[in-house]
C-alpha cells in the first residue's frame, strides 16, 4: 500500500532580497508518510519555515516539484491551493493564534465552518475533541481566560477537528514552560496515534526530539541528516 503523503523532488526555493538572491532551500528530496510524527530541526534561517510553507501550500517552489499524494501542488491554482489547505492541512502556531473574541468552542468550530459545514451538524464533533484535549470545563471561555498550555491545546484541537491528513506545527512548544511542553507533546503524540494524521514539527526544542519518530536536520537550506 502506498502511504506516501508528501514528496519533494529536487525542490529549491530562492527569495529575492533586494538585488540579492537568497537560497532558502536547495535540491530537497523528501517523503512524508501518512501518520508520521516527525520534525525539521535546525537553526534560524535553515529553511524550516519555508519547508512548512511549501508543504502547507502557502508558497510554491522556485524549482522542483512537490506532490501531495499524486497531485502536483505547483500546478494548482490559488483557489485549488486554498481548497487543498482547507481539506487536508491543520496548522499549529507558536503563538497559538486563537481569535480573542471567540470562545474555545468557537475557535475550534472555525475550520469546520470554513469547510462549509453547518454548526449544528458538527457540534458533537467539536465537543468531543475539546474533551480529548481536556478542556471540556473551559469550553465557553475566551482565550484570554486560558493559560498558554491551554491555548495550545485549543490550537491542537482546532488543527485536528477537521480530521486533516497532515498537521504542520511551527515551534508549538516555544512559548510554553517545560511541564506544559511535555504535556502538549504527549497529547500530540496520543492524538497522532488516534487520528492517524501526520504531524510535522519545525523546532529547535530538544524536548520535541524525544517524542518524534523521525528527525530531519536542516542547515543552509540543505538536509544534513534524516534519522
Amino acid at each position: 500500500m502506498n502511504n506516501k503523503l508528501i514528496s519533494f523532488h529536487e525542490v529549491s526555493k530562492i527569495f529575492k532580497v533586494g538585488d540579492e538572491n537568497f537560497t532558502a532551500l536547495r535540491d530537497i528530496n523528501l517523503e512524508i508518510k501518512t501518520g508520521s510524527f516527525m520534525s525539521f530541526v535546525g537553526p534560524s534561517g535553515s529553511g524550516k519555515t519555508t519547508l512548512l510553507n511549501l508543504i502547507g501550500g502557502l508558497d510554491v517552489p522556485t524549482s522542483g516539484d512537490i506532490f501531495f499524494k499524486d497531485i502536483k501542488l505547483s500546478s494548482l491554482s490559488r483557489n485549488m491551493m486554498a481548497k487543498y489547505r482547507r481539506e487536508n492541512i491543520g496548522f499549529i502556531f507558536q503563538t497559538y493564534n486563537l481569535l480573542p473574541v471567540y470562545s474555545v468552542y468557537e475557535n475550534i468550530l472555525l475550520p469546520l465552518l470554513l469547510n462549509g459545514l453547518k454548526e449544528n451538524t458538527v457540534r458533537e464533533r467539536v465537543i468531543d475533541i475539546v474533551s480529548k484535549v481536556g478542556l471540556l470545563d473551559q469550553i465557553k471561555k475566551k482565550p484570554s481566560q486560558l493559560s498558554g498550555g491551554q491555548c495550545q491545546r485549543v490550537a491542537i484541537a482546532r488543527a485536528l477537528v477537521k480530521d486533516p491528513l497532515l498537521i504542520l506545527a511551527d515551534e508549538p512548544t516555544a512559548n510554553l514552560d517545560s511541564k506544559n511542553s511535555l504535556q502538549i507533546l504527549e497529547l500530540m503524540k496520543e492524538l497522532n496515534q488516534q487520528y492517524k494524521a501526520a504531524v510535522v514539527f519545525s523546532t529547535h526544542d530538544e524536548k520535541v526530539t524525544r517524542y518524534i519518530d523521525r528527525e530531519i536536520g536542516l542547515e543552509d537550506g540543505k538536509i544534513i541528516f534524516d534519522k
Partner: protein
Amino acid sequence: MIVFLFRGIFRDKSRFLFPISIVTIGVALVVALVGFMEGVFMGMIDMTANLDTGHLRLVNKPFYDEEHLRPLDRSLAAQKETLKWLEHNTNSDITWAPRIRWGALLDVPDVNGNTKSQTPVVGMALDFKSSDSFEIKRLHLVESLLKGKLPLGKNEMVIGNQLAHSLKVSLGQSVTLLGQSFDGGLVADNYTIVGFIKFGVTTMDKKMVLIDLIDAQNTFYMDDTVTDWLGYFPSSFNFTNYVDVKNKINFNLNTWIKTPPKDWAKDDIPITLSILDQQNIGSMVKTFTLIKSFVVGIFTFLMMLVLWNAGVLSGIHRYGEMGLRLAFGESHWKLIFTLGIEGLFIGILGSIVGCIIGGTFTWYLQEIGLNMGDAFSKSGLMINDVVRARLTLDGFIQGIIPGIFSSVTGTLIASLAIFKRSEANLFRELEAG
C-alpha cells in the same frame, strides 16, 4: 459562517461601534439635513403657493404682464363660467380658488374723521364665506389669527399684525380703502378691522390686508370678475408633474379662447402658469435639487472615506484573523465577500439607527419648528418665520442608500489589501503575533 462572523462583530466593540457610529451619524445628519432643507424649501414653496401663486395659476395674460401695477381693468371676467370650464377641462383632483389681488391706500381716521395715519397696502381678496371654500384652512387663518375674528360679515378685513402696530389701529376700527376700480375710476370704501393676523412672513405681516372676495368685487366694481384662479393639487402630487398638467390646460385653453365667454375683452388671453414659472421658483427648485444632491454626495464621500479608514483600522486589528482564515484555506474572494456582508450589515444597522435619530430630530423640527423670525425680519422672501423640517420617504432613502453604499464600499476598498496579501508570508506574520 456569516452568523459566526456576526457573533464576532457584536462581541468586538472596536470593529462594531466605530463603523456603526460613523454610519449612524452620517445617515442621521443626511436625514436631518435633507429633512430640514426640504422643510424650509418646500415650506417656502407651499407658503408661496398658498398665498400667492397656487400650484397652477390661471390668469389673464395682460394682467400678468403688468402684475406689479395691479391693473384690475385687465382682470378676467366670467368667473362662474370660468370655474365651470376649469372643473370640466382640468384634472379632477385640482381645487380651484378665485382670488383678487389688489393694491390700495389704507386710511385710518381719527375721532374727527381726519386722517390719523395712511399707508399703501397689498391686498388679497379670497372666498371666506362659501361653505365649500378651503381658503381659510389653506392659509391656516384660524391658527394665524392673533386677535379678533375672520372677516365673515360685510366689509370686514383682517390685517397683518405689524401693519396694525404701525398704524396704531385697534379691533373694530373703521378704515377707508382708496384705490382704483375695475373700470379705472377712483374708489373709496369703508371697512372694519376685525382681526390681526400673523402670517409668519415678515413682508406680509407689514403690508398685507385680507378681505372677502364678494366685498372686493363690490368695492372695485368687479362683479363676476377675478384677477386669478389658483389651482391646488393634493400634497401627494409631485411638483415635477406640474408642467405636464399646465401644458394640457393651456392646450385646452387655446380651444376655449376661440369661443370665449361674452364678458371677456377682445384682448383677454387667459394663460396657465405653474408655480415653477413664477417668482423664479423653477430655477430655485433646480438649484435646491442640485445643492441637496451635492450635500448628500459630500456626506456619502466623507462617510466612505471615514469608513474606508475604519475598514483599514479594522483590517489591522483583525490582521491575525484574516491571515488565519487564509491559512486555513478560505479563498481571498470569499474572505472579501464576507467582509462585504459585514459592511452591508453594519451599513443597514447604522442606517436604521441613523434614520431613527435623524428622523426623530426631523420630526421634532417638523412638529415644533424653529423660530427664525428675527433672521428673516429684513428678508423679502415669502418664508414662514417658524421654519419646519419635513419628514419624507425621500429623505430616508437619501440617507439609507449612501449609508449602506459607503459602508460596503469603504469596507471593500479597505479589504483590497487582503487581495495583495501573500500566503507565503502568513506563517511569518502569524508567528509574529
